[in-house]
């Protein structure tokens, strides 16, 4: 399902001005990322119709939504709090959406199955845990047969454990129903797991917009972003786990060893996240070192900022980022174009591609 989403919006509230002008085919999951106060939620409220822009328009698939009230927009919204109706059961909440749904959306049974809602149907909403309530809220939004899903930090109110429990449901539901979605979050982990493309908002403006891996790699590791700079890379599984439980991956011809890939077949492609602070640099291939993941790379770019030096590295295709102290960078006399070795302390596995 693909339709053009045109946003040309200016909205002022107090000192803050949101000014967004984008025109992109809406497909897959677009992450909207940025520090709090950047205008992420405001942007979603304008698209849903809860707030009216001071100026501009919203056009989806050739239909002008600008003047439509929220109830007439074919949009499904999941808010930060589940906002389930307390006077209705879980089933009642879902039926509320089904009764008013447009034709052609995912059916009741499909959504219940995808989100595993069957055991919850007869519960009262106040007996649900935060994660369960948010799953119901997502199901309810899907049952309105939306043509665009708006997810406003749906996991922000959950603790890490519940977040981890709901993420797989969210990911598979978004894939299964293939409804274009805008996903607001300030968690880079959620972005990496769910988003195909990322729009970075900063001070009410679009600071970056593009494929997820490229945007994350290009993100400025500026302080106060609530973000840990790094890269997303994809690598193929080269063999089965060895006696130590470690599997070898093929990263553009070089080997990377990671744990936790039991049951993943050879040839499968996994998505990895490598933080800049987890990468150290050596000018010669080191020996007698506990770190096993050493990748030969070319230094593409060195950017000094304050006490740190941020390095962009080319591993024969995939890029890596490293953050070391400027003192180390000078001591190793690192210059752009030089071949060095990236020592990777930690690789986090983000899922199968």
């Amino acid at each position, binding site marked *: 399902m693909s339709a053009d989403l045109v946003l040309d919006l200016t909205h002022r509230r107090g000192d803050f001005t949101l000014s967004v002008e984008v025109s992109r085919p809406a497909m897959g999951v677009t992450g909207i990322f940025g520090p709090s106060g950047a205008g992420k939620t405001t942007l979603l409220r304008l698209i*849903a*119709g*809860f707030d009216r822009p001071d100026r501009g328009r919203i056009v989806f698939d050739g239909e002008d939504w600008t003047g439509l*009230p*929220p*109830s*007439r927009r074919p*949009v*499904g*919204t999941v*808010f930060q*709090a*589940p*906002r*389930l*109706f*307390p*006077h209705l059961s879980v089933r009642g909440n879902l039926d*509320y*959406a089904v009764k*008013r*749904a*447009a034709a052609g959306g995912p059916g009741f049974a499909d959504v219940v199955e995808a989100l595993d809602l069957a055991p919850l149907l007869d519960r009262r*909403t*106040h007996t649900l845990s935060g994660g369960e*309530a948010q799953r119901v809220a997502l199901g*309810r*939004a899907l049952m*309105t047969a939306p043509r665009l899903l708006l997810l406003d930090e749906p996991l922000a109110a959950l603790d890490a454990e519940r977040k981890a429990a709901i993420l797989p449901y969210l990911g598979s539901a978004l894939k299964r129903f293939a409804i274009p979605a805008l996903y607001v979050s300030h968690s880079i982990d959620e972005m990496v797991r769910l988003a195909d493309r990322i729009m970075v908002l900063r001070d009410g403006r679009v600071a970056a917009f593009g494929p997820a891996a490229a945007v994350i790699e290009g993100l400025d590791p500026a302080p106060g972003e609530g973000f840990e700079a790094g890269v997303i890379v994809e690598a193929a599984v080269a063999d089965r786990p060895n006696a130590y439980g470690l599997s070898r991956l093929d990263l553009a011809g070089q080997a990377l060893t990671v744990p936790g890939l039991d049951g993943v077949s050879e040839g499968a492609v996994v998505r990895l996240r490598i933080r800049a602070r987890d990468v150290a640099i050596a000018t010669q291939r080191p020996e007698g070192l506990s770190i096993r993941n050493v990748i030969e790379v070319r230094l593409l770019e060195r950017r000094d900022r304050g006490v740190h030096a941020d390095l962009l590295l080319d591993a024969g295709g995939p890029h890596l980022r490293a953050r070391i102290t400027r003192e180390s960078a000078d001591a190793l006399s690192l210059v752009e174009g030089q071949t060095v070795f990236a020592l990777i302390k930690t690789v986090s596995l983000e899922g199968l591609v």
Partner: protein
Amino acid sequence: MTGPILLTLALASVTTLILMALSLPLAWWLATTRSRIKPVIEAVTALPLILPPTVLGFYLLLLMAPASPLGGFWLEVTGTTLAFSFTGLVVASVIYSLPFAVQPLQAAFERVGPDMMEAAASLRARPLDAFLTVALPLSARGALTAAVLSFAHTVGEFGVILMVGGNIEGRTRTISIAVWEHVESLEYAQAHALSAGLLVFAFVTLFAVYALGRGRKLHVR
């Protein structure tokens, strides 16, 4: 003795029905508007709480007199005077009991909040649909309180009725007027019977309202 009782019940029932029909939209508007005239409307609505019933009754009487535009219009259309009639009592009671219907409803609607209404709109519910299926059920207890208080307050009114309706048997002589009439005539036994009845009624009503207020709360998350 049953005449005043039946008349009072009829007056309170009709008044409550009309008040609820008027107060639902008015209270919803007050709970959701950002208009600058909201405090003005709130103050006007609350006036009967502090005005002496005689003052309110006096102005209503002037308004309903055949010489006034409203009273004259009524006389022309129906052939009867509005003052000293059952209809006149209904009009007066609706105005006099308005805050008792509007205020509990407004408070209940304010507790529903914009979040639930946005959720309803996001599920394709038009405003009226969302009001009937979300705002009203979530305010059910406030609506019940409003209805009970409107009814009870109308049963208990005296000054406004005396001013607007006088004391006409079968037409405007309600329980409170009948008690006054009996006391004036030194018929204390009859006065006792009606007064005790009203006392028990008032207690039971208030007990019901407070018991409702203590009931199971809906969890809004």
